[in-house]
């Protein structure tokens, strides 16, 4: 890894994202990692190290990392942080950037596709509607338009 490969603007981008404001205040006391319940169970998950990577501008390494999706949002790190970095919120900012850059986790991507195509997590077809009619329930039509708008995807069902 060369210094040239680092993106010095990455930390500014994270700081500009809602929730990411505190990133630059970190003085690496490591209280967040020490308090983190995930860090104790997942090898390599280390809030302090993630913050360092952002500050060093190792953009691809952070966004492509599967680790950023593992936060349990228990807010323990925010509780002990002396510098008000608010790591849980910083990580939300990082995840938003990652999702926009096409680094979303595969499971979430699949859910998005499903919602965009059918407007619900379970597909409702002829078979399901037949069962509903038998039980005396009204039929359900798929209405994916609203979700397509919210998710910003093409009506065809594919990703934008």
């Amino acid at each position, binding site marked *: 890894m060369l210094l040239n490969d680092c993106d010095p603007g990455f930390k500014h981008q994270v700081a500009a994202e809602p929730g990411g404001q505190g990133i630059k205040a970190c*003085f690496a006391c490591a*209280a967040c990692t*020490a308090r983190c319940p995930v860090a104790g169970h997942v090898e390599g998950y280390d809030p302090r190290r993630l913050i360092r990577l952002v500050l060093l501008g190792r953009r691809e390494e952070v966004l492509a990392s599967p680790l950023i999706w593992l936060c349990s949002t228990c807010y323990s790190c925010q*509780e002990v942080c*002396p510098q008000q970095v608010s790591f849980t919120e910083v990580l939300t900012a990082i995840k938003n950037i990652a999702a926009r850059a096409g680094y979303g986790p595969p499971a979430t991507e699949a859910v998005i596709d499903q919602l965009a195509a059918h407007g619900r997590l379970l597909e409702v077809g002829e078979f399901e509607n037949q069962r509903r009619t038998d039980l005396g329930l009204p039929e359900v039509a798929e209405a994916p338009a609203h979700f397509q708008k919210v998710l910003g995807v093409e009506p065809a069902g594919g990703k934008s």
Partner: protein
Amino acid sequence: MADAGRHPNITLLTNSEVTSASGYVGNFEVRVVQKARFVDENTCTACGDCVKVCPVVVPDEFNQGLSSRRAIYQPFPQAVPSAYVIDIENCLGHDPIKCGKCMAECDKKSIDFDMSDQEHVFKIGTIVVATGMEVYDPSVLDEYGYTRHENVLTSMELERLINAGGPSQGEVIRMTDRKVPRSVAFIQCVGSRSLRRGNPYCSNICCMNTIKATLQLKEHYPDIEIKVFYIDIRAFGKGFEEMFRRSRGLGVRYIRGLPGAIQEDPATGDLILTAENTATNQLETHRAEMVILSVGVHPPEEMKVVQEMLTLQRHADGFYLEAHPKLEPVDSATRGIFFAGCAEGPKDIKEAVTQASAAAARAIRLMNPGKLTVEAITAEVDSHKCTICGICAKVCPYNAIEVDKRSGTPAHVNSAACAGCGTCAAECPAEAITMHHFTDRQINGQIDALLDSDPMDRILVFACNWCSYAGADFAGVSRLQYPANTRLIRTMCSGRVSQKFVWRAFEQGAPVVLVSGCHIGDCHYINANHWTEKRLKRMWKKMEKLGLRPERLQLEWISAAEGIRFQEVMDKMERLRREVTPDEVAKTQRILAAQREKEAAKAAAKAAKAVAVPEDARPSA
């Protein structure tokens, strides 16, 4: 302290409280209430017979509550004066049915329950404020479990345990099993360097205190295992780095990374700390038989009382604010009052002694000549013109002006207390105050002269002596280029810049005017620039009302070190000046002339009415 108590020129009042302080340098009057100690300190020989019979047992504050004392006690062995004192809150009293045992036991008959609090009034020349500091209480930091886990102690508690005269005769023992721990962990920055809980600043003393404690522990118990969890070790003083190295040489492990939580092993009372070692990137679990929280310090609550009494300022961190951080580090902004020790900020013994010596020398320097030379730059009130409105007394940052509205006594400036900012003269609606060396006539003369020719080309700047004028000077010596048509008028403080000076400048055809001073909080006259700010806000409103563009009057804070900022501000002023057209200036002059006539007419009408009233009143009388 024993030496201070014996010194013929030092009167030591212990167990006392200052209740009020008034006056000014050389003439302070201080009232002190000395609480009754119920033991005659002149006859008490501190034999200790009374203690043996006292039935009341309470926690010993000096030993951090780790041991107990009686209701009649000496706070600590070297306490001055060397005499006992009765804790009247807890004492059962002298009623022989209830108790009174100590009275019966005392051979010297020193115990006297009829003593009462005494008030002393002192006339004094100078005051040294040494109100000290308090130690942070870590019980709010739930993750460390202080008070929940018995073997988690503070650095103060360790200090008492390791002291030979302490509650355990110098044996460091655990609270749960009274055994010497085989491993001790220290956690640094507890209550310090935190924007969320505790204090945002570094407490200065805890790193070295921990290093000292590790050396003491290693000396007592060479086999003890010691780990120190830290963010940064700040060993910045003389010999400190060497001491840090010695501690590491003795096998003390310094681990960079704060533990996130402390858990207790219920079976053994041992403590389990989880911390990330940032040197190795590993999340580690450490076991320690005792944990010491290296607590920070903070200003005591009572500082506020003294602050109000002596009109002192406090820094954002709560400690007293010195007159100047570099050049007057032990002086307060009020002349004749000095700071020593932690009253001014957290510091160790050496620094506190240094500062106390400096404060004493500064006080002696003032008092030794027996008289005081004051700057001739002081304000003076013309009592004939004074309308006794009281505004000057309200704005004076030094409480140097006395005015009694009720009895109708005109304002009077105490020239020993006056520092010469000129805010009173700028605010006086009756123009009754003369600010010597910066009189209205002098400043008006400068305005007229600077705008005498080509006023359209000029940028008129009012700069305060301490910051903005010095900032301009710094821009000059730094060879920074700024518009050559800048014209500066120096005042001691931006507080001196009266509304009428600005109006006069606009009337003389000034396109733009800048008022500049020290940054808010850095004012060399305590808070006089707050009044500048308020005044300019009033002026901007008035300009809008009159139909003048408020942008033409600017207010900027420029410090003495901000040469570049001075340059930037001047470039901005030049841009603003270019936007002003001759027509706009002519219109301004017309508006202001009309306004002046209107005000003159109003004043004349008021004067006529004032004369008319007694005539109307005569027939009815």
